[in-house]
């Protein structure tokens, strides 16, 4: 596994733990379809939450949230539609973003933004 993938996987684990601690329940992890992959799908009350997790080891090359571009958001919306098609009766949905700044040998900083579009 390449270093960047390892960092991404670690970030996704940290994000998942953070969200579960907030009282959300996990529905899917790395859900795949021909259009791409959704990092995390969770349930928060009556809402289905699609989460894009972005992890960086430092902010030297920009904040991780800055890397979530309009094109990425649009793709995430299409993926959410695909997920709903595969799971009928999902109800209301929302899209969140989680930034994980995880420096080597230091505790990670997690930022969670709700309804990012």
């Amino acid at each position: 596994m390449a270093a960047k993938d390892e960092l991404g996987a670690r970030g996704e684990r940290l994000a998942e733990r953070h969200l579960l601690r907030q009282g959300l329940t996990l529905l899917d992890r790395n859900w795949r379809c021909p259009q791409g992959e959704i990092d995390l799908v969770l349930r928060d009350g009556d809402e289905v939450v699609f989460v894009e997790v972005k992890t960086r080891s430092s902010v030297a090359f920009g904040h991780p949230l800055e890397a979530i571009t309009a094109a990425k958001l649009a793709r995430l919306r299409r993926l959410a539609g695909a997920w709903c098609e595969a799971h009928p009766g999902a109800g209301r949905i929302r899209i969140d973003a989680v930034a994980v700044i995880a420096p080597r040998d230091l505790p990670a900083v997690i930022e969670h933004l709700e309804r990012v579009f």
Partner: protein
Amino acid sequence: MAIGRAHAISLLGLEGAVVEIEADISNNLPAFVLIGLPDAALGEARDRVRSAAGNSGLPLPSRKLTVNLSPAALPKHGSGFDLGIAMAALAADGQVSTESVARVVHLGELGLDGRLRPLAGILPAVLAAVRAGFGTVVVPAGNADEAALVPGVRVVPVVSLRDAAIWHGAELEPIPLEALMPAVPMAALDDSGDLADVIGNPDAVEAMQVAAAGGHHVYLLGPPGAGKTMLAARLPGLLPDLTAEEALEVASIRSLAGIPVRGGLSTRPPLEAPHHTASAAAIVGGGSGVIRPGAAARAAHGVLFLDEAPEFAPAALDALRQPLESGVIAISRATATARPEFAPAALDALRQPLESGVIAISRATATARFPARFQLVLAANPCPCGNSGTRDGDCRCTAMAVRRYLGRLSGPLLDRVDIRMDVHRITAGQLRASAELPRLSTVAARERILVARATAAERLRATPWRVNAHVAGSWLRSPVGAGSWLRSPVGAPARGATAALDRALERGGITMRGYDRVLRLAWTLCDLDGTSRPGADHIGRALYLRKAAR
């Protein structure tokens, strides 16, 4: 998170409107949204502000930043809002005191390193801030001298965004940086010279003094080398010093035109001499985006000299007619898109300023007004080759060519010019004789003109006018106005004084407007002579000054 508020000034002509800048930081993906009709340069403030803040040690949060400029319908131009936007954003983020930022007006363009660049138009912007009731303005250090010319305001010069944030309570160590200063303009060539330099042409020298005393417009006609330009350049020297208010207005227009105001306010009247290829927009003002003052506005309270006047595009000259009468230029516009200002012809642009003394440039949503109370000096050759009517020259222009050449100056424009004077080349004899003859210096002439102006101002005390040239014709002729003196049966010396003038009107030699102008000239001549009312002699000389040139 709180909403940050700051204030800046949006200039339209010389008038400024306070723009409130609101900044809101919301929990969303990082973005910088700028709304409220910004133009392209202002839209780019987003990138300047983010970089400048980061490089000043005050990074903006990685969240969605929404900046609103209100009133939303007012079009806003240029980069002067950068500092206000940055301070509002930092206030919203809690990095500086929200109350402190909201209390003052911020002006300045940011460099990417966080330093503040000086702006054009600081003087009118600070004036507008004071009129709107703000007591403190934060300006770039390079504009501090100019902003300090405005009375009754506390000017806070800052070198960088970091300095501004520290002033507003940010807990940071100041980093000394070199302030960005405005480019130093080339020193203007002071070629106004002394009146005593003029040899010969005593009538024309006297005519320039009459023009200075009464505020009359002048038309000089003569061959090349006769001294028309020399005479015109001496007119500003004959005019009295500007009042504090006028000096501030002159400096404001210069500031708006991008000429930095240095070394205090100049109290001498300006001289503007645009080249004859100038377009109507160059004369009255305009431009896409920011509406800039033209030569007529820069000549406000001074002299606008149009050398080779028949060579100007007719539309440019005729656009001056209204400002000549009202003293104001107003430019209105719908959008900031570039478009041709006027029809390509430029002599006609001068007509409107001549009438009103104001230039109003109008597009659909906004009107910029510039003061345009200037004295017009037109100079022309008598024919295309310039030698018509001279003794030594050999003119080969056909009669038709001469008529067509002078016909380029339209009747309505010339009708607004009180004094028309022939200027002749001096002869060798005159040059020899000039050594012995005493010639009037500018200082002595100005003394005489100041006395005449004071006399006129005293007589016009109860009216809105200060000089004879501005007095309305109806008042001159009315039973309560100055004309009543001329016609009153008790005033023996004045009785029949206007006989020559009445005859000229009856014969159709002059128009009614021309009649009024002769009356005004007669009053100026009378003020210069120190007599209490114009006599037949003054009317006769006034008729000569009005009719001398063909």
